[in-house]
């Protein structure tokens, strides 16, 4: 897609939404404020004959900083946007379908309604793309319980309600109750997380959503943290955060191909094939519980090399699972 498509859609958006602030325009477009300003400057080079001052598109910012209001001038002929291209219709369809698979029931209904409105309103190839294309990005549908939980947590985030959650901590291996200040619901990899300040830990944490048994908003609001503090949480997912040490494991030649497929080119992962066909993998260790599950899945095809303390935890985990089988 050309810069032309990006410029015309931005122009239509800003012309139709008079009084939008730079901050809100940034949130609506996904563009940084600086990028919006650069594009606005590009637009001021555009006009139509006879090129009197009123024939050039112009804008002014009323106010300062990100709260400045954008006021477009002499661009009214762009107020009505161009029709969707088939690619835009498809991108929107795919995004709506993806959104639908993991969202609360009320929002899911709104997505259905919006899709119906679009199918009615759009024309030509854009309409065909919307109506006739099969799903493009197929992900598992979240269960009704998860969707209900998402609704509860989204309300808590929106209302800034301190929330009590019952959470199964993998580290502790048991359920516990925590009071959290919920900031965001995040999809990272194949999991959803609640990103929140945990009063028990005194720091931000990422809570796997499916491990929250219940969530109840209290009647107390929390103060929103400064934006800069938002990323200060410990990341429990595999691909982020601050690893203190590395996990080193050796895989048999039998499963080597799977390991290469899964880990090749992954950030921070080192793969080395030994002369006998086995593979050594070294990755940052963020979460010992994940590592134990990962290693157990490969059975005797894997050998844990480091850290040594994890061998003990792995052995205990295997013993407890074997006991559960023997008791049953």
């Amino acid at each position: 897609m050309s810069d032309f498509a990006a410029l015309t859609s931005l122009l239509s958006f800003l012309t139709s939404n008079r009084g939008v602030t730079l901050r809100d325009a940034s949130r609506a477009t996904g563009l940084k404020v600086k990028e919006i300003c650069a594009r606005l400057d590009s637009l001021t080079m555009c006009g139509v004959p006879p090129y009197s001052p009123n024939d050039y598109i112009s804008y002014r910012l009323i106010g300062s900083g990100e709260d400045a209001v954008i006021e477009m001038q002499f661009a009214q002929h762009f107020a009505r946007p161009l029709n969707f291209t088939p690619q835009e219709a498809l991108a929107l369809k795919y995004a709506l379908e993806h959104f639908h698979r993991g969202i609360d029931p009320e929002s899911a209904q709104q997505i259905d309604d919006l899709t119906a409105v679009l199918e009615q309103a759009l024309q030509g190839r854009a309409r065909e793309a919307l109506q006739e294309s099969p799903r493009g990005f197929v992900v598992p549908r979240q269960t009704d319980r998860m969707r209900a939980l998402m609704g509860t947590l989204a309300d808590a985030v929106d209302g800034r309600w301190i929330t009590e959650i019952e959470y199964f901590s993998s580290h502790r291996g048991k359920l516990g109750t925590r009071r959290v200040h919920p900031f965001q619901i995040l999809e990272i990899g194949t999991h959803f997380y609640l990103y929140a300040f945990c009063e028990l830990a005194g720091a931000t944490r990422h809570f796997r959503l499916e491990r929250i048994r219940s969530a109840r908003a209290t009647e107390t609001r929390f103060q929103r943290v400064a934006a800069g503090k938002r990323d200060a949480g410990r990341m429990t997912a595999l691909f982020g955060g601050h690893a203190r040490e590395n996990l080193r494991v050796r895989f048999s030649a039998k499963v080597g191909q799977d390991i290469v497929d899964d880990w090749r080119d992954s950030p921070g992962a080192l793969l080395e094939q030994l002369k006998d066909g086995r593979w050594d993998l070294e990755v940052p260790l963020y979460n010992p519980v994940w590592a134990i599950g990962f290693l157990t899945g490969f059975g005797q095809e894997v050998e844990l090399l480091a850290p040594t303390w994890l061998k003990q935890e792995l052995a205990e985990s295997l013993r407890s699972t074997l006991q559960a089988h023997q008791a049953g």
Partner: protein
Amino acid sequence: MAYQIKPAERQLNLLGALLKNRDGLVWEDVARVDGYNDDLPEKSRRKRFERDLHELRDAGLVIDREPESISRIRYTLNRAACLMPPINLTPEQRLLVFRLGMAYLQDRGAGPLTRHLSTALLKLQAGSGREGLPAVIPPAFIRRSLNRRPAEAELLDQIGNALIERRRVKFPYEARQSEAATRTVAPYCLVSRRGGWYLLGLDLDRQSVRTFRLSRIRGKVSLATPDETAPEYQIPTSFDPEQSFSTGAFGAGENAFEDVAIHFDPDVAFIVQNDFGGTYPLQQHADGSVTMHLAQAYPGEVLRYACEFPGHWRVEGPPALRTYVMQRLQATLDSTKGRA
């Protein structure tokens, strides 16, 4: 030095002139538009104009050409075909559109959808009339992402773009137990499973729908016919990804165990309900535990999922799977002892 007008700005000028002149433009009008009114010979400027017309058509614009004489053509914007019809959205729907942008466009969560989704949402918010934005703009409290493995992000972008554009791709692919070979594929869909993405598409050499694991692509993905700009294929309306590929969490196939039952104790039963309630039959017991029933499952997938709950689960059946799992756990334990 005179300002060199950029192609996007020049094309915007042309569109502006077409929008303002409902009767259309002839070359003499175009020649007054910035970007076509420089000192180069008319032949060069006309060529530039024709190129731009072509690009505007690629962007979805319908520009009618009406010959007025042998050498004079009138260009008119087909407004009905080009401009978005008014779309009346409720305040809730406006909010939803805005939330969609916040959920996917920040941090490039939309991956290959980003460029087209961005312009689509802007158009939608412009096309839903004045005050297209919700009255109260909420914080960005949901972030969604199509990305799974960081190492796959670039491949997902390339193949996802080709899927949206309906363009054929080719890539070196190393199937299990075979050498890498170039495959040419018309992408039908991408399926997320086992933490990564799989491409389902028509393999043009084999003339059948095949599955390709993105992590087994070795090297670059490129367009099969890079000079082509138009869509190259249509996806059959009968195509159903669920029928072409097992999207079940525990897999299904020839070597999978059948009639699998896994018991989870009360501490973790709710997690299984969160993950699979309504997807697989879950038998609830009086003590709060659950038994999950699966028509088919691979032992590796069972272990991968359940081993995150050490001591909280056991295979109830079939006996062969239970024995297999226990032997595997014991072997792993023995090897750990030996090396500890």
